[in-house]
């Protein structure tokens, strides 16, 4: 209860403010919140939930997980080897800077224009950067004494990786994964601007193009809600894997 209350306080205030401020709105693009709320159940009925939202979320899940795995794997490799880092960094930075709207066609050229593959790759390519960068930095900033401990006990590659490097870098990996989560949701939308016929992102864009503005707003709100839900899920995982870290950081605060 003590955790739920503050989590709800600000949203309640903001929603109330939005409600009041928009109540008398006649602007076409800023409909009253009331209108949006009324449109919500009409818009997101069983059919769009099953045929738009679920596939989108499935693609998001696959792309996101692929990105985390790839980001961590690459990040550990690049973070551990200075040569590899210097070799790959400019190239990675180049790829990172290319906007998805122009990158997507190139992906499609290889992964197909329709279907899930190119969309999943798009999501994964967007999500991978925060994970990758943070993993690299996490691996680089691993405590030297810990590293030496592992070396002196001649830990094998796997053990060093698993028990030392990954665990030591995990606070930063989690930071990156957290960042990637919302980027994933964003790219889920962007990937569906291209070669899609259904999906949450495609639906929002179609509302927008069809000037169904309240419905578009419900889509945006749905995205936000998905973000909150995913981050809640994420926090559960984080709570488990980083229990030691929170303990370590609070150890002297009288916990």
């Amino acid at each position, binding site marked *: 209860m003590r*955790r739920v209350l*503050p*989590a*709800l306080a*600000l*949203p309640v205030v903001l929603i109330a403010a939005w409600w009041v401020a928009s109540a008398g709105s006649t602007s076409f*693009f800023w409909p009253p919140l009331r209108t949006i709320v009324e449109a919500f159940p009409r818009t997101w009925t069983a059919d769009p939930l099953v045929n738009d939202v679920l596939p989108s979320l499935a693609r998001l899940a696959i792309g996101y997980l692929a990105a985390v795995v790839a980001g961590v794997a690459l990040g550990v490799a690049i973070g551990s080897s200075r040569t590899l880092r*210097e*070799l790959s*960094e*400019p*190239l990675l*930075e*180049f790829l*990172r*800077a*290319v*906007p*998805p*709207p*122009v990158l997507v*066609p190139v992906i499609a*050229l290889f992964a197909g224009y329709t279907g899930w593959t190119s969309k999943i790759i798009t999501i994964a390519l967007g999500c991978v*950067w925060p994970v990758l*960068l*943070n993993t690299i*930095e996490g691996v*680089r*900033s*691993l*405590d*030297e004494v810990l590293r030496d401990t592992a070396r002196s006990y001649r830990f094998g590659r796997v053990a060093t990786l698993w028990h030392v490097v990954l665990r030591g870098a995990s*606070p930063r990996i989690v*930071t990156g994964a*957290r*960042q990637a989560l*919302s980027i994933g*949701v*964003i790219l889920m*939308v*962007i990937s569906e*601007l291209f070669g899609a016929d259904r999906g949450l*992102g495609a639906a*929002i864009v179609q509302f*927008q193009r069809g000037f169904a503005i309240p419905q*578009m707003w419900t*889509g*945006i709100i749905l*995205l*936000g809600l998905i*973000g*909150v839900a*995913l981050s*809640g899920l994420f926090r559960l995982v984080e709570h488990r894997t980083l229990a030691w870290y929170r303990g*370590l*950081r*609070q*150890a*002297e*605060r009288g916990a």
Partner: protein
Amino acid sequence: MTVVSLPGRASARPVSLGLLGLAAAVALLELLPRLGIVDSRFLPPFSAMVRSLAEQATTAAFWTATGQTLRGWALGLAIAMAAGIAAGVVVGSVPLLRALTASTIEFLRPIPSVALIPLVVLIYGSEMPSALVLVVYASFWQVLVQVLYGVADVDPVVRDTARSYRFSRRAIVRTVVWPTAMPYVVTGFRLAASVALILEITAELIIGVPGLGRSIGLAQSSGAVAETYALVLVVGVIGVLVNVLARAVEKRALRWHTSVRRDL
């Protein structure tokens, strides 16, 4: 004295190695279409892109567009960094604030800037501020989250040291929290810099704000494939340069940090 030459060698190495990596990518880009692995109509070989780029580089319009993009990007990034750092430090150091804002932040973060396009056009039209709003909105979250985690990373012994000497709140932020969060901020900067560039280009592309993105949009809708990719190359190169900058900043500002001091 025996290893006096070391620093010089170290600074020369990354450049050449990095170029090697890029060269490999260039070779791939040249070979894939040439060997027919991808259709050269849709992905021209690298040399064709460069040729087209050389042509465009002689026009003033190209440089104006590049300048406009860089200006919008830098401004947006600066605002996002300043706001993200300030908000991150404040929210991160006050547990109550953090608890209060967490859900709202998570709600706002995944809203794609692209979905906000009609709204910003409504307010600003296809002018620079439109792109700016999108750039700031998207990159702000990158910085904020990094800073939040960075602030939480303060070593309790260090914090206690500062408290026991009764450092003021401001002093703690400046001398303890900030240096600890610094590595996270640098990563945040690198993430935000590319997101800002992406959004600047995307906004230009879709809304028609003047800049490289609009040129890309033009080339795209004219079916000028080589020109499109030539411009994409420019964007990528800007990204690489930004990273070089970030690394240089890191090398100076994070001299003391494990990550930097080790691989001197």
